[in-house]
């Protein structure tokens, strides 16, 4: 039960949203949207440039009663947000990190595509496949 979202600055509109399962999707969307504020807060809290992956990975943003939200931001200020069900205790921090890494890698692959304009919604099938496989792994 997981969502991956990519949002790009400055407007922070989502480039990509995917969730499994699909019920309560709107709630997840909303959660992601609100957690963007938390992300921004964390970013502005660190004044210096983010070159360290530790800082790129923002960690547990906002634990609520039902789920946890994790954040990750790239150098170009593209944010990845992941919402995970709290009941899924099998997910450790390392796994979340590795999932973000994979997301980041796939995102750079998309960037390499000259037909992709940064800021467009992401329609890449390779990216979809990667996200799907990742989510299947978790659930």
């Amino acid at each position: 039960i997981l969502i991956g979202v990519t949002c790009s600055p400055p407007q922070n509109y989502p480039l990509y949203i995917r969730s499994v399962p699909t019920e309560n999707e709107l709630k997840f969307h909303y959660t992601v949207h609100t957690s963007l504020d938390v992300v921004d807060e964390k970013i502005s809290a660190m004044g210096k440039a983010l070159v360290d992956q530790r800082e790129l990975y923002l960690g547990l943003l906002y634990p609520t009663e039902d789920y946890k939200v994790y954040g990750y931001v790239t150098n170009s200020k593209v944010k990845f947000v992941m919402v995970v069900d709290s009941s899924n205790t099998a997910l450790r921090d390392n796994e979340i990190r590795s999932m973000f890494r994979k997301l980041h890698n796939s995102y750079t692959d998309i960037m390499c595509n000259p037909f992709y304009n940064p800021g467009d919604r992401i329609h890449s099938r390779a990216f979809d496949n990667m996200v799907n496989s990742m989510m299947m792994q978790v659930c």
Partner: protein
Amino acid sequence: ITEVCGAKRVGYFGPAQFYIALKLIAAAQSGFPVRIESIKNELPLPQFMALKNDSEVRYGPPAELHGVKFQVPHATLEKNSYKRTDEEDKQEPKSPPMSPICSPPASPSTYQRIPLSYGYGNSRSGLEQQHGAPYEVRHSTHQQDGPSSGNYGAKPAVACSTLNRSLSAEREQQDSSAHYVDDPWRITEEQRDYYINQFRSLQPDLNSFISGSVAKNFFTKSKLPIPELSHIWELSDVDCDGALTLPEFCAAFHLVVARKNGYQLPETLPETLLPEYLQAASLKPIRDCALFDSYSESLPGSQQTRDFSRTEKVSAEEVPDNSALLQDAKKDDKQALKVNVALKMIPKEFQHLTVKTAAQESNALKARPRSRSYSSTSIEDAMKKGEEPPTPPPRPQKSHSRASSLDLNKIFQQNTQAVRSGWLPPPPPALPPRPSVSQ
């Protein structure tokens, strides 16, 4: 049947007539009346018993019709309507049974295999592609089992030769267009030459890359919609470096051509468009690449293949350890059908085409399994991101294994290149002070 399918009228069995005839044969064998309307039914495939020795039916009937379906799109696109629907009936590999009766026309020998044989299990050794493309007469390497002799009985043989003539006539003119795809995912010689010339016009050095922006401008001229071009790029740029090498470019161009001719883009890159395959084929038309046949359909798009295709300049089968590696990694049952004769025959003149040395490649191959799965250190990410969106320079060969760490660190710190290899940071003593990444 001959009359109904129109062969009498036009005087020969063109592909359209031939396919209708086969359908009618199937209809007749199923008990339907021989009429044009009968072919609209969902028919089982016709049985041609007289074609071989009495005992064996060489052509699995499925193969025939399936082969028919295959050929239709290639030969006559307008027949798509009923042909395409049947195409999905049997997904079996076809191997071209070229009958020696039908000697090949001047067209290139790249049509060995039945098109669309990728993705299909290769266990159908008995199958031969009969009619459809007599011009695809293959030399004996492809005869699967047993009798390579004319596959048809007398009548079909006659039909075959007439077909051959008519089809070769068609093919000649189609060949000249240089955009005709017989097997949609296999590049003919003319096409290859055309692509190479186009590549040259964009980038005079055939061993070098075409940058992303140049390629984008070029392919945008094809007037395909951007999402499709984007997908084509995704498929063809297997190492995802934002630039196209010659094989990648050929694959991309070929996909554009196919798309413009009405074919749907595949989800993953077909085997025949893989860079190693194209690299190999560029020097010598490869009949059966058992090595590449072992790539399952799902793999091309996957990371594994990407890893292996990183050194697209060096065809994998050249280096024995690489081929062993690849075969081990990707081995499945698909070997059976393809006769891997040509594999061994790839001349060493390949080497001169390669940019990266074999040594590098083997290093890379070792390093590759790690390359993407461990995803990079932060600095690599930083560099990666720092170079988006302008087209990043072509990535250097991933020749770094754990041992050769120190230089790489310096390179990273100088921030000269966006290296996307995902090798783990070297052991601490050699490491310049860099924030350590927790894996």
